[in-house]
């Protein structure tokens, strides 16, 4: 079985967010780019599954839709342990377009399991994974917090309101993963970093797919009013404020 992990290239999660061009573009000046945190967990789980030979995973690939400037992030995924990578050479315009590009590669390269993180930390859409599945007419399982292979069958744990369900779907399928899928993201070792230099990044040109959305403008959240401090010797005052001023309890 072959696994494909979809990778988004996002600003480091501690980045101070700013915009340029009349608030229509993210200000990338001085920004550190990283693998989207959930995609990193997805990659980690894929590699853990491959580590156990009994699971029969023959390769773990990653895919990214983006221009050449995102290659350091792809190399990082290779250094962590992915066998090879695909890059669709296109500026990502919207989720529909990105998902369409990924589906084309899945179709031609025939992956059995496609992993996607629940959302990207920049656009917070939570859309690409399920869109890929619908483009391909594959089953998809969302909110996945555990995935194992038992006797050749995938056993998936998904989160539901107030609990969990254990389900299985036949391959090929898309798993949209979240917290719990792997404990800690795997970190690249020196050997992996050396090997990554020679691993292949297969670059392809995008197919013609529409974009259905367009960013009009970004806005920064309104700064919150200054915090009203209550004396630690008189916490009762806090409860009074919440009852009479904020009126939330």
């Amino acid at each position, binding site marked *: 079985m072959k696994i494909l992990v979809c990778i988004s290239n996002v600003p480091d999660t501690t980045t101070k967010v700013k915009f340029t061009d009349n608030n229509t573009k993210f200000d990338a000046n001085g920004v550190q780019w990283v693998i989207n945190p959930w995609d990193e967990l997805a990659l980690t789980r894929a590699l853990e599954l491959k580590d156990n030979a009994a699971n029969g995973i023959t390769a773990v690939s990653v895919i990214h839709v983006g221009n050449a400037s995102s290659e350091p992030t792809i190399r990082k995924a290779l250094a962590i342990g992915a066998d090879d990578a695909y890059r669709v050479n296109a500026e990502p315009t919207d989720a529909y377009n990105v998902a369409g590009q990924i589906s084309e590669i899945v179709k031609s390269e025939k992956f059995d399991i496609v992993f996607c993180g629940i959302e990207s930390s920049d656009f917070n859409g939570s*859309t690409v994974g399920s869109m890929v599945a619908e483009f391909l007419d594959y089953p998809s399982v969302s909110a996945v917090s555990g995935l194992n292979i038992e006797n050749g069958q995938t056993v998936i744990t998904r989160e539901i*309101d107030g609990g969990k369900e254990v389900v299985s779907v036949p391959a090929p399928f898309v798993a949209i993963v979240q917290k719990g899928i792997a404990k800690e993201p795997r970190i690249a070792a020196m050997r992996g970093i050396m090997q990554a230099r020679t691993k292949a990044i297969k670059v392809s040109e995008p197919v013609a797919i529409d974009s259905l959305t367009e*960013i009009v403008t970004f806005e920064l959240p309104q700064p919150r009013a200054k915090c009203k401090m209550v004396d630690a010797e008189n916490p009762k005052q806090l409860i009074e404020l919440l009852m009479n001023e*904020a009126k939330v309890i």
Partner: protein
Amino acid sequence: MSVLVFTENWDGKFKKSSFELASYATKVAEMLGTTATAVSIGNVDDSELKSLGNYGVKKVMCVKNDSLNVHDSQTYTKVIAEAAQKEGAKVIIIANNNTGKALAPRLSVRLKAAIGSGVNKLPLSVNPFVVVKRAYSGNAYAQVALKSDIKIITLAQNSFELIETPNDAAVEAFAPSIDASMVKTQLKDVQKQSGKILITDAEIVVSGGRGMKSADNWAPLSELANLLGAATACSRPVSDEGWRPHDEHTGQTGKIIAPNLYIAIGISGATQHIAGVSSSKFIVAINSDKDAPIFEAAQYGIVGDAAKVLPQLVEAVKELKGK
């Protein structure tokens, strides 16, 4: 033409979030000069279905089919897409919860409909159709134009008020063209906790961080939560340490919530934590470090030790709320 809203049920009942969706759909329909129709999947009785009418929905399409007892995203998507086509829906509204996140993107591809996800207010305009969504994990908002003929909105929970516009909703059975062979998801086991207030449903959340010092110190926090009818939550280090279960972790990589009141106790307020709670209407911070970043996100704060402040808060609630 109409606005279609998918109202999920939980063991045959709707929740407050279902009525928020109905209220929202009714308002969007007004903006478009049309009416809202709800679609419900599963065994929900007529009086419950009709209750959606209290929030302005004119018609409820009710799908009862045993093949749909297991949540299978592919099949559910087919059902909602068929309902949308039958209604000539121009806008489809779904909750931005686990179910909505599983279905809305599939519908988007199936109907070639642009999607605005995690939207927290009414569209700014309908021609062009512009919605506002959360971006950069709560550090920004994006105005997004949805350019396709059909549009999909997933509505963030607790972001829209209930608006009662009572009317007698017509309940109609709807039989989509699906059968059991389409359902690829096989359910093997369900583990449900009962009786616990869900963090994502709660209007008040009381949350503890490393400043709680140990798992053994949680009793007064839980008591405060009980008195306030609140859910309990925690920061990432707390769930990583195993002091509290993982499903209580709020923050960027855990649960993203928007309660009316979020009380953060002994939580310093790392960017990643704030990202998960910044949509709360009010944030209260209790922390021994006066320079902790949580105070920048909070409206009310106490600089003090959790172990000392918490029991006094419990007493104050008992006294003032008469419990």
